[in-house]
């Protein structure tokens, strides 16, 4: 019984923290190390992303994908233009509307950019 009482006293003594005069400095050092770790991680991720992008870009250029893509976009531009003409003829779209394949592609790219931006913001807010 006396033993348990002494053990409880000891636990209480251990729980009584000394107050260090440099506790603010200690907290600042921990914050510094956290930020340094975060900065390094961001640098590493950016660096690896850039490296991956360069390798990917080089692979794309090397495979002649650009010329094939150009052929596909030319075809799709014609298809879109023809479809838009059909829609205009059917009075679904107003006759004076300036729409062609390039504008549709650009609108698509802008929509993708907007979605990526919205997702980035949403992830940051979570």
């Amino acid at each position: 019984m006396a033993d348990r009482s002494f053990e409880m006293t000891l636990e209480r003594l251990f729980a009584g923290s000394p107050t260090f005069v440099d506790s603010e400095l200690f907290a600042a050092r921990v914050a510094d190390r956290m930020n340094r770790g975060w900065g390094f991680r961001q640098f590493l991720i950016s660096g690896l992303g850039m490296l991956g992008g360069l390798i990917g870009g080089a692979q794309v250029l090397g495979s002649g994908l650009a010329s094939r893509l150009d052929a596909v976009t030319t075809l799709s531009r014609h298809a879109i233009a023809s479809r838009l003409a059909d829609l205009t003829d059917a009075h679904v779209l107003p006759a004076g509307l300036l729409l062609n394949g390039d504008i549709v592609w650009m609108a698509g790219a802008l929509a993708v950019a907007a979605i990526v931006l919205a997702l980035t913001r949403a992830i940051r807010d979570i």
Partner: protein
Amino acid sequence: MPDTHAQQASAHDLELVALAAAGGRAAFGELVRRHGSGVRGLLRRMGADPALADDLAQDAFLTAFEQIGEFRGEGAFQAWVKRIAARLYVKRWRRQMRADLLAAVAEADDPVGPGETGAVARIDLDEALRALSPAERMCVSLCYGAGLSHGETAAALNTPLGTVKSHVKRGLDKLRNRLAPGREFGAPEQEAHG
């Protein structure tokens, strides 16, 4: 949710932990301000010199931030970080000492003589702990400062359970003598210099 410095200063630990788990560095900074001294104090009481204690306490908080999702709030936040810090110190300590030092030191080192009992009118815990052998100090600090069970202490130190129990018993006997039985044990706040 507390978002300003003043709000964080008055927020409960669990609120700050939730914010920190969501990436809130400022909230975690408040936790470090609150509990830094406790963790540093424990490491010094375990026998670490001030510089090493501060380094390990910083490591412990960084580990805690990385693993904050694992803190379920079942115990106090400070107790959780203290356990992390204690384990970090044990790792360091084991690296520095030979595996069989615990047994050797226990037999060789007994700095408190019976004549010293009651000779000092007022001895605080830090001073009393200095009277223990390194192994006793380690075992007592792990059990009563970091809240580890005897079994957990034995596992952390890679030492037989019986050896840990014997170190704890000897350590407690010495502390009881040093801290003067029958006296009112208070835990006065003391100011230490980092």
